[in-house]
């Protein structure tokens, strides 16, 4: 037990002390902070620009639609107001070419063409320097639509006050997920949380599984393995390595999650201070029980994959060989990620269900399903049982391969040799 502890401590301390750990642990939250703060700030940029109203309106409808639009344009003290040209339908082409010149001379930013088709609800045309600005165009489209509706209402003899009231709509889709227990919070939030958790689990398993792999290769290459196994049984060494590296992973995750949580809480105040509008980040409702299950899945998934990676490390002598030899393990690990999008779109689909049951993908997909839809506890329990069994098999196989492979140098074993390693007592 003291020896296991010594191995765990070495694996843990040497990694936590490394510069790589420091960089990754600091960089994670910084990246998260950027992700939280930057999009709303960028969204600010997609709002209509200050001088979006500096346009020429060519109105060939003869209904005063152009004036109505001009009046609806946002007023800023710095920018000039739209110039409205009421033109006859026949002289529209000439007016357009004059307007084009005005845009080229930078007198105005662009021009808007309104004709009979516009009033019919078909189309309006805009040409200008800011035609590719999403914010400007969105604003213009909204104003044109509203003005057309208002004009039509007036033509139908609705009084202008009623017309204004009728045309006032602010459609915004609020989404909410429902499950058998009732309301389960915002659907988008759950999907994001599900994706986030699946991705975090995947990343961590890949990252730290490979760390175990490299650790084993290092011990083989530096030949330190023989000194160590003369003092410690190989099973203890393997367990210590997997647990020590796993503890590093958990340390990093905890730091990330805590800083992530704090940052999400700080996001709204920071954005408000920067002058952007911010909705507070909402967290999916996760009960302590499901949090525990989540951690359990992470630990089991990590143990499953890292012991397989350790076995691969014991089979090879260098990192190039390791890349090839670890392909089967990587493929297992990637499979759930390939289906991630399908599953996110419909977490209740058959694909999602099957992948959340299979032991090799369950540690990644089951937590996702649990967060983004609801899974019966019975099903979760059976899956955990399955993953536990798979873990047992993986650890048993890995321990046997590791024991023989650790002191074997030379070419990689063939499958039949590997079988002999597994059967060999020691």
């Amino acid at each position, binding site marked *: 037990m003291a020896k296991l502890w010594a191995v765990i401590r*070495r694996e843990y301390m040497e990694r936590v002390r490394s510069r790589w750990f420091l960089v990754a642990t600091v960089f994670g939250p910084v990246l998260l902070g950027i992700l939280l703060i930057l999009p709303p700030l960028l969204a600010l940029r997609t709002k209509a620009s200050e001088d979006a109203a500096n346009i020429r309106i060519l109105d060939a409808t003869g209904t005063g639609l152009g004036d109505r639009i001009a009046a609806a344009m946002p007023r800023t003290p710095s920018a000039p107001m739209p110039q409205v040209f009421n033109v006859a339908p026949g002289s529209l082409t000439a007016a357009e070419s004059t307007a084009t010149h005005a845009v080229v001379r930078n007198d105005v930013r662009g021009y808007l063409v309104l004709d009979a088709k516009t009033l019919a609800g078909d189309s309006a045309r805009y040409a200008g320097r800011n035609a590719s600005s999403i914010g400007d165009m969105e604003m213009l489209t909204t104003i044109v639509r509203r003005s057309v509706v208002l004009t039509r209402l007036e033509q139908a003899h609705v009084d202008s006050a009623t017309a204004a009231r009728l045309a006032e709509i602010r459609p915004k889709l609020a989404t909410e997920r429902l499950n058998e227990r009732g309301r389960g919070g915002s659907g988008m939030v759950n999907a994001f949380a599900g994706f986030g958790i699946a991705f975090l689990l995947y990343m961590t398993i890949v990252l730290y599984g490979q760390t175990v792999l490299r650790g084993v290769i290092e011990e083989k290459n530096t030949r330190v393995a023989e000194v160590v196994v003369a003092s410690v049984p190989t099973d203890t060494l393997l367990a210590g390595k997997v647990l020590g590296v796993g503890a590093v992973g958990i340390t990093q995750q905890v730091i990330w999650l805590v800083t992530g949580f704090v940052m999400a809480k700080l996001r709204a105040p920071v954005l408000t201070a920067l002058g952007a509008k911010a909705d507070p980040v909402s967290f999916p409702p996760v009960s302590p029980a499901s949090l525990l299950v989540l951690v359990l899945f992470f630990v089991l998934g990590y143990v499953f994959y890292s012991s397989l990676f350790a076995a691969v490390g014991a089979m090879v002598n260098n990192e190039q060989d390791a890349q090839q030899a670890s392909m089967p393990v990587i493929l297992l690990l990637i499979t759930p990620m390939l289906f991630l999008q399908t599953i996110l779109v419909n977490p209740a689909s058959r694909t999602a269900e099957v992948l959340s049951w299979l032991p090799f993908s369950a540690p990644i997909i089951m937590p996702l399903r649990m967060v983004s839809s609801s899974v019966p506890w019975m099903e979760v329990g059976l899956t955990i049982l399955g993953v536990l069994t798979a873990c047992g098999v993986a650890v048993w196989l890995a321990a046997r391969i590791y024991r023989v492979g650790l002191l074997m140098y030379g070419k990689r074993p063939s499958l039949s040799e590997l079988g002999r390693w597994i059967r060999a007592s020691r």
Partner: protein
Amino acid sequence: MPDLAIEIDRITKSFAGHTAVKDLSLSVPKGAVYGLLGPNGAGKTTTIRMILDILEPDSGSIRILGRPHTDHGITDRIGYLPEERGLYKKMQVRRVLRFLAALKGVEAREADARITKWMERLELRTAEKDWGTAKVDELSRGMQQKVQFIGTLLHEPELVILDEPFSGLDPINAQALKDIVVDLKRQGRTVIFSTHLMESAERLCDSVCIIAHGEKVLDGGLTEVKSRHGGRFVALALADGAAAATPVLRDPALVKRADDSNRTLEVELAPGAEPQTLLERLVDAGARIDRFELVQPSLHRIFLDAVGAKGVEEGVTGHG
């Protein structure tokens, strides 16, 4: 029966179709310096790995310090220096040593005190420089080897097993290691080392075991092995080449075999021949003699005779 540090009883180990160690039995008395000699590939490392319970013998038994070698805690009483040496390259020297000590159950503070003592003795810690805080790969090869010796001995093992300890050592480190071995013996510890370098074995060992092809060829105390080998040997050095002496040394009535190692000849006398006669004949032939001494057979000679009979494998380097 004297107290035995190691008692091996008919162990056999096979790997995928070839037998590395076959029916090997040997006893190492406590407090002895014991040489496990044999050509490359003879099964020395496999035997050592079985003693350390890294490999399990297919059959036979091993007892260490009076207990079965698989007993809990027995490896804590053994210090092992493998043939292929290595340490964690990116770790600080002192931390590596602390780790190795912890693996043997040495308490941290005690380990630190011993590390300091050893590092000072082997000049890894001087008034100007303490290499303890340097990373292993910042050290020269010689220094890394010293660190490895320290790691082998930190837990003050009763039994020290050194696999080819002299390979790759510069003369200074080789001397340091020999001093350590002598010290260990003085403290009553048992030292086993495997080597194919007969000169170091001859200088250090109390007892030897020669193995070839996984089988024991001979074993016993060094003096006993030498007297058992029989024959009378003369160490001969000639001042001006061997030309004048050649006809005399080729006389089968007088000389059974002459082994020329350039500066000294090891001459085995033919049965019934007298050393005095050889000396007279050499003087008569006009050879100028620098040295003429009755000696016991060298371990090198014994090794070649013993292993030669079993057929020496390729790559054997009997002389060092």
